[in-house]
């Protein structure tokens, strides 16, 4: 059974703080992803990684950075948190091989920036 875990379920931070969101998967997946979910906008891809130390920008990378030092761990960093980064953050992982493109999601981190 694939398991994707996220370091916190709920987080409250102040504007300007540096925020780290951690994600760990236990299935030896090559690919890992960070999304944010906002009402009416669905899931939007922030960054993804297809290998250790490799990363690629998604659709909304501004204000975020990522780190993947080990295959099982993918971190999302908010360098200087702002109120418009208040959102639900979801991490996912996948094999990255055909024919299934299924991604497995963690439970999410509800981040509030005040």
């Amino acid at each position, binding site marked *: 059974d694939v398991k994707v875990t996220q370091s916190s379920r709920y987080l409250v931070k102040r504007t300007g703080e540096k925020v780290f969101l951690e994600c760990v998967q236990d299935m030896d997946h090559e690919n890992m992803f960070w999304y944010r979910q906002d009402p009416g906008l669905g899931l939007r891809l922030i960054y993804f990684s297809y290998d250790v130390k490799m990363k690629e920008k998604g659709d909304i990378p501004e204000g975020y950075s990522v780190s993947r030092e080990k295959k099982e761990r993918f971190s999302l960093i908010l360098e200087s948190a702002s109120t418009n980064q208040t959102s639900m953050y979801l991490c996912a992982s996948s094999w990255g091989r055909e024919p299934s493109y299924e991604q497995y999601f*963690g439970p999410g981190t509800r981040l509030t920036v005040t």
Partner: protein
Amino acid sequence: DQQVKQNSPSLSVQEGRISILNCDYTNSMFDYFLWYKKYPAEGPTFLISISSIKDKNEDGRFTVFLNKSAKHLSLHIVPSQPGDSAVYFCAASGLWGQGAQKLVFGQGTRLTINP
């Protein structure tokens, strides 16, 4: 530029009846489509998928239909049960970025099953 659209933000269905959730896409390069289900305070879970070489895929109470010419897919749930109440996301794949498949998600449809 919303490449995957779910035009109904919400849907309410009587228990036991059929639920039909719709999804439209614009990019003809998409070759695989997935439906995810999401309960509050949980991550999305995979429900069912379909390859572009098929027009129908069935799994128990869930059936996905794909109409490539119309760039439209739909999810049918028969019969609907109260536990089906959740937000459903349609997703499409086929856009490669450095070797990793990316999924493009729709906005989601909140399904409510009434007893």
